[in-house]
C-alpha cells in the first residue's frame, strides 16, 4: 500500500514532463492556492474549537456523556464507547487519542477495542468537514445534511457494535 503515493507522484510528474508543463511554476502556484484555502478556513475553525474547549471545560460534555450512556447502551453501544461516539464528529485528533487509550486499556483484541476501531474507521469528523468545505460561502444551509450525516454515523456505530460480536 505504501508504494501508492510515490507512484502517484512519479506518474503525475512524468506525465506533466511529457506534456511540457512548467512543473516548478505550477507546483508553487498550487501551494499558493493551498495557503489561501488554509486562511479561508481559519476563522471558522477558530470559532468551532473555542466552542469545543468551552463545552469540555464547563463540564457539559461530561454531563452529556453521563446522560447519554444509558441511551447508547439501549442501542447496543457499550458505555465505554459513549465518549468516542460523541467525540468523533467534532475532533479527529481527539477521537484518535481516545481510540489509542481504549486500545491500550482493554487490549487490542478485546470486544470494546474492536468496536471502537470499527466506529472510528467508519465515520468522519462531520463538523470539522462542514467547517472546511463550506467556509467562505454565502449561503450555508447545512443543518439538514449535517443531521443526516450524524444520524447515519450513529446507525453505523450501532451496526458496528453488533457486527463485532461475530465478525
Amino acid at each position, binding site marked *: 500500500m505504501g508504494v501508492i503515493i510515490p507512484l502517484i507522484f512519479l506518474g503525475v510528474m512524468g506525465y506533466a514532463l511529457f506534456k511540457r508543463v512548467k512543473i516548478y511554476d505550477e507546483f508553487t502556484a498550487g501551494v499558493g492556492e493551498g495557503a489561501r484555502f488554509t486562511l479561508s478556513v481559519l476563522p471558522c475553525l477558530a470559532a468551532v474549537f473555542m466552542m469545543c474547549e468551552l*463545552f469540555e471545560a464547563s463540564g457539559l460534555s461530561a454531563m452529556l456523556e453521563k446522560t447519554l450512556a444509558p441511551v447508547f447502551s439501549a442501542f447496543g453501544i457499550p458505555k465505554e464507547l459513549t465518549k468516542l461516539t460523541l467525540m468523533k464528529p467534532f475532533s479527529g485528533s481527539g477521537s484518535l487519542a481516545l481510540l489509542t487509550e481504549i486500545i491500550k486499556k482493554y487490549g487490542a483484541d478485546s470486544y470494546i477495542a474492536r468496536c471502537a*476501531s470499527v466506529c472510528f474507521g467508519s465515520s468522519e469528523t462531520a463538523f470539522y468537514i462542514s467547517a472546511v*468545505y463550506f467556509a467562505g460561502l454565502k449561503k450555508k444551509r447545512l443543518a*439538514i445534511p449535517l443531521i443526516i450525516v450524524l444520524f447515519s454515523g450513529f446507525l453505523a456505530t450501532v451496526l458496528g457494535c453488533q457486527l463485532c460480536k461475530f465478525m
Partner: protein
Amino acid sequence: MNFIFTAVLMLSIAMLAVVSPESALSSMLAGAERTLAVCASLFAIYAVWCGLSRVAEKSGLSAGMAKALMPLTGKIFASQNKNALEYTSMNLACNLLGLGGASTPYAVKAVRAFEEDGNFFAQSLLFVINATSVQIVPATVIALRAGAGSASPSDIFLPSLVCTVFSTAFAVGLFIVWTKLKKFKGRKRFKKSKGQNG
C-alpha cells in the same frame, strides 16, 4: 450553525461562570491556539496535494480522468459544470484510494465551483459522501492495532467496510429522499421551513 454555536457557547459560558469563572477565557484561548496547530497541519497537507493537483490539472491528466467519469458524476451530481465535476471525480478517486489528505482540497474546490451554478444539491451531496467516509482500507486503525500487539490487526477490515458502506449509502439515500420531498412540498412551504432549518 449560528444556532448551535450560540446555544453551546452561551450554555457553556453560563455554566463556567458558576463553576470556575477564571477558566472561561483560558479555554477560549486554548481553542484558538489549537486552531493554529490544526491549520499548520492542514496547510502541510494542502501544500503537498494542491501543488501536485495543480500539476495534474495543467497537464490535462485530471481532466482526462474526469471526462471518463463524466457520464456517471454528471448524472449523480446533476451538473454540467466541467471544472466542478473534474474536482469531484478527483475527490472521490482520492477517497477510495484512502488518500484522505489529498481528497480534501479537491472537495473544497468542487464545492466552490458548484457555488457558481448555485448547485446546493451537489455541494451537500459531496459533503454527505465525504462526511460519512468512503475509505476502503482503514489504514490508521490497522496500524494502531498492530502497534498495540493485536493478533490479527486487520480483522476489523470486514465490519469496518460493511459499516462505512452502510452509513454512506444510508445517508445518500436519506438526502435524496429529503431533496425530493422538499421539491414536492412546493415553493411556499419550502420558504417557511427554510426559516426554521437555518
